[in-house]
């Protein structure tokens, strides 16, 4: 049922060289049609097991038939004569054609062939017949009408379409060992397939065995549709509740298109749909496979952040169209080829990701490779055990997502820890014994010398601690608060050093947000590494917006940089500043410092997409 020539013989011959060039799959074989060959006339009957008569894509149906079963060649005749049903009718002058090589949309036609069980007569011929075809037919067994699928007719209006799969039973008196003549009167105006020829699948076995085959055929796609739906639902729920990321939706899309495809596949066995549905159903399945291919590539490309993925995906659609145009003239092979292209591109992306050391690339690559290998092994029919073949790839993709989620959770925990550590560091910075004890030491002196000033210092110190308490739990604070914190610190330091320190920030937009205690750290570094010269005790802050959302803070710290020690780039203070900037502006900040006339200049840029200084 699955093999139909979509192009005429001439077209096919023209495509052959191209097909041999496009070695995407070893799947260009598979047609046994003999269109173009001279009809053979023979008196001798040629007997063989039907498994040898059918194309490889449907051969699995026949290998299970009794080994002793043999079919003769199929003889074909245009026209209509009720006598042609008779077993004794001499069909020696009829044309010999394959089971898949009957002209489509060409009036009423008859085919005759014989069935026998070569044994010593102890085994009766099995009693059931299953016929799968999009053609309309009546079937005769040794001249007796077994039944019909639809009503054959000489034109489109008089033909009534039947069902794709039909079951018949052979009456007990007609079973017996030996030769039996099968005659079929058929027409095919509503075959749906655009190909010039069509065919039928004819199975003879015990009814229970035929039923078993159908059940097995239906089992995997049914299971697959259910399983894929569950995965798709799980992905959707995760997207809704846990993580709004494109890959979860893409995974869901891969599963939904797979589930729909498998549901269509299974539907045939649960609802014997009319024969003229079959072509649209198969076309829809190819379309779904195409969607699945694009979504799989999209998943891999998005998940591993493959560059130019827009172009990659955009380019895939015409490639799929070309592939289905170039593929051998069998509706299932378009699907195989599309899957092959999708797998190849996905493998390429996953390989690239593996080389780049992306997490999860290993399982994704392994899964895709395993699936690609399984598809290649049975390339004749992508629908046969499609789910089992696609399962490794699916598991690989899920593993990649799981590993990504795991990493993210770990990173989130690390970030949480880092935030907690930074908060502690900020508090420590201001409550650190060195600062506090030195201030207290100064305080003891002032208390003894000038109690009134001592109260002032205590107030200043309290101001600074209040400012610290306000910002300590924040990740970002308005510049106004940061300046307040800095000035409180400078008031304390003014008492301690006996000099009047100040911070100038004229015209600065104080609503700009910065991580807490960044400027304070720059001030502290100034006190640690610089020495007052010429009584310069003014820190200066300038703020500019340099294009877009980028804010540049230029901070001048007065005093001669102490000669014998360059300002340590990795000191605890600067480590704190870097960690804070990275926490709030990951990858979008820069920081550098340099000695300038009369002091040290630090430049912080926030919002710039560039490397860290």
């Amino acid at each position, binding site marked *: 049922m699955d093999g139909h020539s979509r192009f005429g013989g001439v077209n096919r011959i023209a495509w052959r060289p191209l097909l041999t060039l496009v070695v995407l799959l070893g799947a260009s074989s598979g047609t046994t049609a003999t269109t173009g060959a001279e009809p053979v006339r023979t008196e001798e009957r040629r007997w063989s097991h039907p498994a040898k008569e059918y194309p490889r894509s449907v051969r699995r149906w026949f290998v299970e038939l009794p080994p002793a079963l043999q079919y003769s060649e199929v003889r074909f005749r245009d026209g209509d004569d009720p006598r042609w049903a008779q077993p004794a009718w001499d069909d020696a002058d009829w044309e010999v054609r394959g089971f898949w090589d009957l002209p489509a949309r060409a009036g009423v036609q008859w085919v005759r062939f014989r069935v026998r069980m070569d044994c010593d007569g102890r085994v009766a011929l099995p009693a059931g017949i299953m016929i799968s075809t999009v053609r309309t037919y009546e079937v005769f067994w040794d001249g007796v009408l077994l039944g019909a699928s639809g009503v054959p007719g000489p034109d489109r209006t008089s033909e009534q379409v039947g069902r794709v799969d039909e079951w018949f039973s052979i009456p007990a008196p007609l079973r017996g060992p030996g030769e039996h003549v099968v005659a079929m009167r058929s027409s095919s105006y509503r075959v749906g397939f655009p190909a010039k020829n069509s065919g039928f699948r004819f199975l003879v076995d015990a009814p229970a065995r035929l039923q078993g085959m159908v059940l097995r055929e239906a089992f995997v796609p049914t299971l697959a549709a259910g399983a894929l739906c569950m995965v798709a639902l799980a992905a959707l729920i995760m997207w809704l509740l846990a993580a709004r990321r494109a890959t979860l939706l893409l995974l869901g899309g891969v599963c939904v298109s797979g589930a729909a495809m498998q549901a269509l596949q299974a539907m045939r066995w649960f609802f014997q749909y009319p024969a003229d549905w079959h072509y649209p159903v198969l076309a829809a399945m190819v379309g779904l496979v195409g969607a699945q291919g694009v979504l799989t590539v999209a998943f891999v490309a998005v998940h591993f952040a493959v560059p130019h993925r827009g172009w990659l995906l955009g380019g895939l659609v015409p490639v799929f169209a070309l592939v289905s145009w170039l593929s051998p003239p069998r509706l299932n092979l378009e699907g195989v080829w599309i899957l092959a292209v999708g797998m190849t591109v996905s493998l390429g992306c996953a390989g690239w990701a593996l080389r780049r050391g992306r997490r999860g690339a290993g399982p994704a690559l392994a899964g895709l490779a395993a699936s690609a290998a399984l598809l290649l092994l049975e390339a004749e029919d992508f629908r046969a055990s499609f789910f089992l073949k696609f399962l490794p790839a699916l598991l690989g993709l899920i593993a990649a997502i799981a590993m990504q989620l795991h990493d993210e959770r770990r990173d989130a925990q690390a970030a949480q820890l880092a935030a907690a550590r930074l908060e502690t560091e900020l508090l420590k910075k201001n409550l650190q014994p060195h600062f*506090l004890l*030195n201030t207290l*030491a100064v305080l003891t*002196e002032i208390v003894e010398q000038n109690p009134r000033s001592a109260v002032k210092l205590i107030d200043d110190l309290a101001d600074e601690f209040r400012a610290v308490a306000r910002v300590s739990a924040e990740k970002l604070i308005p510049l106004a608060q940061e300046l307040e914190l800095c000035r409180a610190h400078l008031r304390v330091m003014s008492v301690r*050093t006996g000099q009047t320190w100040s911070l100038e920030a004229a015209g600065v937009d104080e609503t700009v947000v910065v991580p807490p205690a960044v400027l304070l750290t720059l001030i502290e570094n100034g006190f640690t590494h610089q020495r007052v010269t010429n009584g310069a005790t003014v820190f200066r802050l300038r703020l500019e917006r340099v294009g877009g959302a980028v804010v540049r803070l230029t901070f001048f710290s007065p005093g001669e940089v102490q000669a*014998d020690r360059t300002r340590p780039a990795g000191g605890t203070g600067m480590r704190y500043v870097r960690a804070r900037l990275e926490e709030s502006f990951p990858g979008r900040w820069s920081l550098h410092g340099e000695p300038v006339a009369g002091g040290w200049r630090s430049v912080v840029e926030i919002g710039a997409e560039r490397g860290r200084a």
Partner: protein
Amino acid sequence: MRVLIVEDEPLLAQRLERFCREILGETLETIRRATALAEASARLDEAPIDLLLLDLNLHGRDGMELLKASVAGSFHTIIVSANTDQALRAFEFGVIDFVPKPFSQERLAQALARVTEREGRAAGAAKYLAVKKHGRVELVEIDRIVYLEGAGAYAELVLDDGKRELHDKTLEKLHALLPPGFERIHKSYVVRWSAVKALHASEGSHYEAELKNGVMLPVGRTRYKELREKLG
């Protein structure tokens, strides 16, 4: 006594100076101030001192080097710092006391007493003595010292391998820094007591200590009896 204060916070330098004046009174000969150790070394070249009051952050290599350079000098060093976590380290390197900030006059007096009193000892045990050698400061493990020999304003450290190292401090000052277990046996000798094998008295009130490595050191007449009892 000649004192140098190294403290960058003027109020604290003022406090230290005031306390020194009040505690030392007449015995204070000179007192000078510097805001950083680099500045202080210039002051040291101008005139020698007996005591350095040093505010030093020992974190990092710089602080350590400065401390070593300081304790290798001929004077005693008292660290006055808020970084109390560094006190132990400072003692290992041979400071005579570590006064934590904030400090009271009593606490500073206690530290100064370690320097001024005859039998004053360091508040903690030193592990190293810093010696100036070829323009650099090197550390000598005190565990390796067998005895010390005074030579006027200097002292020689005699090590277990027989090597001798010259130290800028006097024998008295070094003895004050050394951990218990070192005995002054003579005005010019301090010896590790566990290295002494026997004491000998010869004619003419000539006393000697025989060390386990065979070296004979003179023993002061006034010290002999006490040492005899100690040896048992």
